């Protein structure tokens, strides 16, 4: 189980980091979202994995560690706030620079649109 969980976090991290390193805001946002999924799972796992031991007093014989759960809950909400801000900042970037390159570059029209056509004709 632990190995599986670890690999899942690894996969989330891999995808997250790869997308974080992309040149457009949208993939970057998605990368950070994936990364934060991975991070939340990791932080959650710092209290170890337990089955059916929800930390609600009186419902089971033993309880999983509630503290990481509370931390992750906080982290999820904060992560959401941050993501929302970033998404809107990306929109602002789009408005200001007429494209969504992370560095605000003006579109190299010919090359990019060609690629886009390739995609859309697929």
């Amino acid at each position, binding site marked *: 189980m632990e190995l599986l969980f670890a690999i899942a976090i690894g996969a989330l991290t891999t995808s997250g980091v790869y997308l974080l390193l992309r040149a457009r805001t949208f993939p970057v946002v998605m990368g950070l979202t994936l990364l934060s999924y991975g991070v939340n799972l990791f932080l959650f796992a710092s209290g170890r994995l337990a089955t059916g031991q929800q930390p609600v007093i009186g419902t089971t014989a033993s309880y999983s560690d509630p503290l990481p759960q509370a931390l992750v809950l906080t982290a999820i909400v904060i992560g959401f706030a941050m993501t929302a801000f970033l998404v*809107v900042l990306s929109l602002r970037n789009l408005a200001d620079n007429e494209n969504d390159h992370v560095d605000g570059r003006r579109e190299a029209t010919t090359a990019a649109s060609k690629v886009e056509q390739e995609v859309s004709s697929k």
Partner: protein
Amino acid sequence: MSLPLVVLLPFLGAIAAPLFAQGGRTAIAIASSVPALIALAALFPHWSVLSAGGTVLHTYEWLPVLGLSFSFRLDGLALLFALLILVIGLLVIIYSHYYLKASENVAKFYSLLLCFKGSMLGIVLSGNLLLMLIFWELTSLTSFLLISFWTHKQDARRGARMALAITGGGGLALLGGILLIGNIVGSFELDDVLAAGDQIKAHALYPVALTLVLLGAFTKSAQFPFHFWLPHAMQAPTPISAYLHSATMVKAGIFLMARLYPALAGTEQWFYMVSFTGMATLLLGAYIAMFKHDLKGLLAYSTVSHLGLITLLLGMGTQLAAVAAIFHVINHATFKASLFMAAGIIDHETGTRDMRRINGLWRYMPHTATLAMVAASSMAGVPLLNGFLSKEMFFAESLQLNLPGLWAWIPPIVATLAGIFAVAYSARFVHDVFFNGKPVDLPKFPPHEPPRYMKFPVEILVFACIMVGVFPTVSVGPLLYSAASATLGGDVPDYQLAILHGFNLPLLMSFLAFFGGLLMYTQRQRFFDFHAQLKEVDGKAVFEFAVSKIEDMARSFTKWLENGSLQRYAMLLVVSVIAVTIMPLAEHGFFIGENGLSPVDWPTGIAAGVLIIAALATALWHRERFYALVLLSVVGLIVALAFARFSAPDLAMTQLSVEVVTIVLLMLALYYMPSWTPMESSRSRRVRDVLIALAAGAGMTLITLAMLTQPFSSISEFFLENSKPGGGGTNVVNVILVDFRGFDTLGEITVLAIAALGIYAMLKNTALTPPPGDGLGHAWTRDHYPLMLRQIARPMLPLALMVSAYIFLRGHNLPGGGFIAGLITSVALILQYIASGMVWTEDRIPFRYHNVIGLGLLFATIAGAGSLAFGYPFLTTTFGYITWPVVGKFEVASALVFDLGVYLAVIGATLLALVSIGRLSPHSAIKSKMEGA
């Protein structure tokens, strides 16, 4: 008290001077003179102590941790310099009064001049090396401001910058040197340092300290190869040149070498570094001086040369040479200051300083000419003038150096050669300016004598030249003795201040220099022709080239590194993390902990497989954005399932709700964005990124694996035990959130609130044009609000509110709570927006989201602050059970109010954020309640 006062007075004067600006130029000049007069009066009483070979010391503690004190120390050397600074300073003030034009900022001029004077006095009177350094750098700063006094002149600005760079930079080296000395001696007090000469010289760091100190001294005193700043500093108004660049500031380096003579001199390093630098400077300055057509240029290089001479004398290391050095300091200050002032008068009267145009001034201004000629003769070393005396001593000492073999010939030859040049340029100064035919094309013609009292300072100085030249013992004897004694640390050798020491080798050298110089001047055209062939290496050009080169390199280097690419910065971050994390991990090897692995049940395995596939597929197909978004929501869903699977129902619910809101948010944004990400990265870049990402993923996998298999115990036992009795709830996660760690939660809803407010502000003035249709070429449908959706959305709202209430109220005891309830309510309202549109929905929502956010924060804060009234800390909760007759037992918990704050803040923030984006849509650009802010 009097010594600090001497230093302080000019600064006070500098502050006061502008106040007198109203009273006119005379008032300000007089006001500026007062500090010097008082200072002179304050120094006078100390003479009795000094003449007896004593020192005066006034110390006040300042920063003991640094070893820095307000320590002021007066001895012969300090007195000599202080007198030079004060007296010549006074003369310069008088001279400036006539020199400056009425239109100029006289107040600033005097103010800066007084600042400079105070700093200079600070250097010579400091009894603490660090204090001295402070004043040292202050002179660099004030001189920077003074040189660029005429800020409109580009040369002045450049000259000033160069002077600041060289002398300020030297000051930093000096700082290093002083700190090392302080480190060696254990004190920065001058008395301690001077007493510890042997200890310093024996220390391993002595060569470093010496080099650093000398760097400071050489730069300040314009020694080769740092000499070039000085001639360019001559862009300053002439009184400044006279004061700073002949009499005082450039002497600061000399002063420093003299001051630290007992502590640093007398070693081979000292000898070679100082004397050879001095020699090179002496010769180079004298040589170049001859070829300068600019009057001040000639004087400037001559100054460089004389500074070299003094340095050479100090470097020789013999006591007599040191005496000669001190003597020449006095003499040079007097004749050179008067020459500068004379040059200033000529400039003032003719409008130019170009000697090729200035000729035959004798006919127009004989009085000035006479004064200048006397001073120039002193510079040339003509007998009966003070310059001759110290030069004779210099020649004599140049013969005394114990150099091996033929090397012994070098100092006297250099000395004589420099003497020849000195005579030649002095002759040029006299002949070319005052004789040599008629003036050529002068800007002001005819020139005439300056105002009577503009010449007064020159007269005083020339008088001093003659007095010292004829009656050396009477005029400067005691002062020189006292200064020499202070320099040498008490042992003053026998020396005689006679007009003539008889016919000896030095006199012969003088004759040689004199006639050789005259001869050279008569043959000057040949030398000019010869010099013209040489490619002149201008230090300034080199310096400026170097600086601009450095700046260019800095600029391109910065642009290269800080290239504005987020991809690079992010890559650096990720790689840094991998680098620093992998090391400790690799050190002990990767491992699986003591608990080992537990078996996998296959549904979990399949879910994890789906998660992994979806995560990787998101990255793989990220360029098709909507597709990637769908994959992302699969990942989010499975993460939520994972939380449920591993005993975290609260997390599962939070994750689910947040995920949906996030997806909606991303789609709101995606509307305006391209539907596809263009292929931009090169193949190598993608391969690189994949490798980095794999490394990061592998790292996380290994860390997680290690972590999960280690045995563990935590502080959570406490939470589990106290949740019910202490926090009044059985859902420990919720009790942690609203009670044990309620402060985190307060911070977290603040984050949410700020994000929403920030989003709102950011989008308020943003105009985005949405695409007319999707990327496949379909125009959007006109069907904004589908009937079935509208119909289902309405009953969903009360139902969802009911569920929210349920989730909210049970949260303290069962999975749920304010966050999740808030998100459910938000999502239900978002559904209304989706189904029926902005305008319709907002018409039915009777509050501003801003206020909901504020209310949420307020509730949470007030709930937390309530306990303060009972003397308990912020966020202390209470709960109890109320039994009502019919209703039964009710739990009432103050944490519920806090959670209500959370609930409201979540609703306000989520909706404000999403609705702000929705409002961008042109369709909703209709007046609504939220408009206006």
